[in-house]
């Protein structure tokens, strides 16, 4: 089973990397870009789990290891079963 987990900084936390990208896009003329938030993508390949178990373990992994809950939030999707 393939899972994609997205980790990014919480809205309340300043994201200078995202801002730098936004500024760069503006200098290139893409003024339509209102905001950029930068994050990380993890692609996990899981085995020996049914969907229900997976849905339990993924947030656990994300909260415990992949994201730092003080500054980061995460979302995830199962890409293929």
């Amino acid at each position, binding site marked *: 089973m393939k899972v994609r987990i997205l980790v990014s900084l919480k809205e309340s936390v300043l994201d*200078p990397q995202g801002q730098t990208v936004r500024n760069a896009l503006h200098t290139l003329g893409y003024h339509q870009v209102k905001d950029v938030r930068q994050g990380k993508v993890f692609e996990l390949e899981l085995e020996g789990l049914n969907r229900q178990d997976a849905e339990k373990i993924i947030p656990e992994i994300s909260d415990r*290891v992949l994201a*730092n809950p003080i*500054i980061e939030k995460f979302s995830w999707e199962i890409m293929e079963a």
Partner: protein
Amino acid sequence: MMKFGVVVFPGSNCDYDTFHVLQNVMGQETVFLWHKDHDLQGVDCVVLPGGFSYGDYLRSGAIARFSPIMREIKKFADSGGLILGICNGFQILLEAGLLPGAMLRNKNLKFLCQQVNIRIENNRTAFSGAGKKGQVLRIPIAHFDGNYYAPPELLSELEKNNQIVFRYCDRKGQLTEEANVNGSVNSIAGLINRQGNVLGMMPHPERASENILGSEDGKVIFRSLIDYLEKKKGTGKKKTVRAVRPAVSPLPPLIGTF
């Protein structure tokens, strides 16, 4: 003489430096503690050194906290043992939940290696007792993720409890935006836990402990620890006999002796 333990994680790279200063400059018994070990060898104080544990590939300090030795260190902390985290060590303490808050990338998005000035905000700790409140120390930093962050409620709690031990400042001790090079909230350079036995700091005191390298201000931290421990052990009487400085080898001992 006190016994210090310097933890070696894969990717630690200030382990030898810290070892060198504790043993050869401060004259204390010092041992390395391997990350896979389950034993703290009876040390009086644990130091988590700087470096890039596990390459810091996930987040700085994020993987090191799962090492076997960290379980022992948590127990040690719970029982009141002294723990000093320097740079990556500070990041590990944050990730491990032994200190509150988190680190963000430096505000200029670059690695920063330079001298900074820090002001002692609280000298009534085991880590700063040898200094004066308001004293300015000149100590270098070297990090990519040293921009300390705490949500507002936590921050006011830290301030209220006097947990902020060091702040970035200018030469004269003023807190300015320019002096706060990495953008830390409230210019925080070092903080202590509520119980007062775990301290994390981004600046490297071990790089400022010998005149030949430009500053001895970092010794204030090590001196504080030694004084505190001596006082605690020696029934309040400070030992007058200093340990003899052992011979220094120009080459660090090769790891392999754990």
